[in-house]
């Protein structure tokens, strides 16, 4: 709270109507462009910083979820989706149109640190240039790429050249100054600790990290384009599974389902909501188990028992999910308006399997606590390393276990309820340590909460009257949401706030489909956590962020 001026502290909690906000912004607002989820204020491209700081400091909108950029026939547009960490149902969109021929817009980076990467991405994919941005380079595509792939005149078939510059003499002096010698080290994109294909440009002073810069885009699979090429009803749903591929499939599918259902005004039957909730929490357990497993790999070295045991527990959840959805990893189980099929027959067997799993879960969690969290060496390695203070976390738009490990009490399942969560009895876990250990502890305790949720769902499903088992609402064969409706909706995925922005243009495919990936924002905090620490701490911090490159790069 130290960053806010004392006289505005209380304003954060106050909910303002859109008109009050417009009055607060005064002349800054040029026009209104309301979205389904929030009021939208159109502003001039040179007043971005002013508008956002008014909203942040005087109205308490302290969370910049995402910057979604797009190109229209006659203009470019960047939208800043703002929320409050205290109450994410209070949302506001700031719409910044930019000139078609010379798309320049002011950067929001001085107000929200998180805008740095989001604007670089917008520049990379759409081609909007941001004035006053500290480092406007391509982020996802190679530096030498030609054209901006999500802009309208992009030619997909043109040849491209990608470079491999890292073949200089490795022992050459890099970044040498008069005081000391530092060494430049590439960690990744192929490195055992990067959890996929992340590249960390690290500058070392001995074993200590002077500067680390994540270089992403090695798994940029054009997910947004793929979604824009698919029809709402069936063709998009398989892709969310592949964003956060650590078995968090159902959580991701829910993000799309929630956005599209709100966009097309579809009501999901209660029975389907319970099934969704149960499946999603199973996915959360699987995802957190892998986070635990890979974190143990980072701290213990390969072939540690913790890794194997955690994978074993994942195997159990995956068996349940396979029974439910028919797939081990890429479930494709949700449909707009419900789920694709009912629980597997015989239902009793499924329930008893699930209960067996839940019964043995406390025992395995106890085992993990014995193996790692109560180990002195482990504590020595993780406590007070990779510290991320809550204010910094908020400034970077960190969400999920990363934010909750820093004591930021923000969980969309409770704060912006969807599905069946608000009917169930469970707690949001936070830890105040702000370090690697807290983040791990949050995940381990969240597994217990998820187990609680699943148990209640199983109870509900078991007693559900047979003639009320409605798994899908009636949804038209082809969905064509109205032209120019826009929506941003988020759910609490395994890694944090996973949001989808959709703009409909009256056809059966979205005109713009923007994914707000929690890992993308979380990864941005790495330099804050790692600078000044040792190499092993960078590896540990990266492990505790639990990034999935599929979601970071999309």
């Amino acid at each position, binding site marked *: 709270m130290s960053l806010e001026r004392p006289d505005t502290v209380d304003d954060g909690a106050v909910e303002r109507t859109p008109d009050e906000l417009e009055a607060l912004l005064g002349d800054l607002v040029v026009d209104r462009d309301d979205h389904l989820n929030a009021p939208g204020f159109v502003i001039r491209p040179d007043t971005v910083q002013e508008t956002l700081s008014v909203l942040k400091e005087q109205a308490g909108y302290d969370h910049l979820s995402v910057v979604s950029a797009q190109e229209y026939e006659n203009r470019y547009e960047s939208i800043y989706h703002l929320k409050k960490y205290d109450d994410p149902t209070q949302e506001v969109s700031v719409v910044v149109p930019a000139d078609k021929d010379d798309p320049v817009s002011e950067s929001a980076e001085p107000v929200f640190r998180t805008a740095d990467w989001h604007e670089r991405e917008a520049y990379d994919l759409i081609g909007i240039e941001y004035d006053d941005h500290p480092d406007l380079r391509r982020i996802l595509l190679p530096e030498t790429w030609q054209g901006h792939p999500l802009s309208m005149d992009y030619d997909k078939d043109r040849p491209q050249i990608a470079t491999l510059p890292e073949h200089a003499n490795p022992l050459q002096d890099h970044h040498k100054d008069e005081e000391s010698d530092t060494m430049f080290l590439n960690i990744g994109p192929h490195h055992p600790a990067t959890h996929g294909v992340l590249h960390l440009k690290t500058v070392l002073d001995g*074993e200590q990290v002077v500067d680390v810069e994540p270089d992403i885009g090695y798994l940029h699979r054009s997910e947004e384009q793929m979604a824009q090429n698919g029809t709402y009803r069936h063709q998009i749903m398989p892709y969310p599974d592949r964003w956060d591929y650590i078995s968090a499939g159902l959580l991701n599918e829910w993000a799309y389902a929630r956005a599209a259902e709100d966009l097309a005004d579809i009501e999901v039957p209660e029975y389907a909501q319970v099934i969704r909730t149960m499946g999603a929490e199973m996915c959360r357990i699987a995802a957190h188990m892998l986070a635990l497993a890979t974190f143990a*790999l980072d*701290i*213990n*070295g390969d072939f540690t*028992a913790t890794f194997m*045991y955690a994978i074993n527990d994942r195997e159990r959840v995956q068996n349940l999910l396979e029974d439910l959805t028919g797939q081990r990893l890429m479930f494709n189980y949700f449909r707009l308006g419900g789920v694709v099929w009912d629980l597997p027959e015989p239902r009793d067997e499924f329930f008893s399997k699930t209960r067996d799993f839940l019964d043995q879960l406390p025992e395995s969690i106890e085992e993990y606590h014995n193996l790692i969290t109560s180990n002195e*060496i482990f504590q020595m390695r993780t406590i007070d390393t990779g510290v991320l203070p809550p204010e910094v976390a908020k400034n970077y738009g960190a969400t999920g276990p990363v934010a909750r490990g820093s004591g930021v009490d923000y969980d969309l399942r409770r704060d912006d309820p969807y599905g069946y969560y608000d009917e169930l009895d469970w707690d949001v876990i936070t830890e105040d340590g702000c370090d690697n250990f807290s983040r791990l502890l949050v995940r381990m305790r969240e597994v217990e909460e998820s187990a609680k949720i699943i148990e209640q769902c199983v109870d509900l499903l078991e007693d559900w009257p047979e003639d009320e088992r409605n798994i899908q609402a009636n949804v038209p064969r082809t969905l064509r949401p109205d032209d120019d409706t826009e929506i941003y909706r988020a759910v609490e995925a395994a890694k944090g706030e996973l949001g989808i922005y959709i703009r409909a243009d009256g056809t059966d495919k979205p005109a713009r489909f923007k994914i707000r990936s929690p890992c993308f924002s979380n990864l941005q905090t790495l330099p804050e956590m790692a600078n000044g620490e*040792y190499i092993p701490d960078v590896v540990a911090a990266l492990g505790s962020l639990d990034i999935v490159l599929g979601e970071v790069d999309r």
Partner: protein
Amino acid sequence: MGTAPAQLFPEYLVDTFGIDSVLGDVVASLIGAALVANIILAFSGVAGPWAKRKITAAFTDRIAVDRIGPFGLLIIPAAAVQLLAKELIVPEGVDRPTWDIAPILLPASAMLGFSVIPMGQIGPLNIHLADPEVGLALVFAFASIASVSLVMAGYASNNKYSFLGGLRAVAQNLAYEIPLIVTAMSVVIFAGTLQISGVVGAQTETLATVAGFDIPAWFAFVNPFAFVLFLTANMAEIGRNPFDIPEAPTEIVGGYQTEYSSAYFVLFYLGEFVHIFLGGAILSVVFLGGASGPGPESISFIWFVVKVWGFFLFTQWARAAIPRVRIDQLIEIGWKGMLVLSFANLVLTAVIVGVIA
């Protein structure tokens, strides 16, 4: 149990075959060395591709190799041949011949250490090559050559990860060699000699008799504190978990051995295992009564094998369960903790021995 130490192996050969000449000594020594080297290489060969996997698998609920030959044992020749038959890549810019010497030095130095280790008896053969008066000092000297090899490998590889690994190896060995030797010195005070047969001989007496069982005066029982210190320092010395930081696959890829392939990699791999076994052998000589154990002396080789493999099992157990410490923490533990404790142990031992004597 045995009072007068049995004849050394080369001497036995000389006597048995009556080749009492300079040439005879040389031949006998060579035969002895070949025997010891083969025993150790056999240990490492079994441990590296097979036992290590099987042990780790047992700790992690898996099976590991079981399709290739009985119990997967044929993986040993298969892995050895396939690794040796691979292309040997010499990266551009490596510093030869340092780069080539390093992988030879590591197993060689560890093997040299075994020259003074008494490995027990097989029937009339006492597998012990030499017993110089400064044996204990010699074996530590040989063992610590290994860190030179790691630095050479790390520095010559022209790779930053190797470089970091090499530097870590020096820092770690400096920090742990001193407590290791100082702790061993406390044993020397008890034994009153640096000669290894003397150190082992001092442990043959009976410490106490519990329920009819004679508990031997192994220094591990006489001074358990020193034993724990020595064990810890020994783990660091051989670079195993929680002190495997010169290698640290999830941090610096492979450390000093990142750039090595094929035969050189085999040599490093082998060297690591020989080194573990040397660590186990030193531990058993200094603290676990050498090759002694219940039963007739003529099968004491079995006890040596049991002790050395027991230590190997321990290292693998640690690998499966214990996290790795950070380099700065390791050095802090080494200089601020272990060094102080080992000197305290030394002074205390000296005082106690002085008072009793």
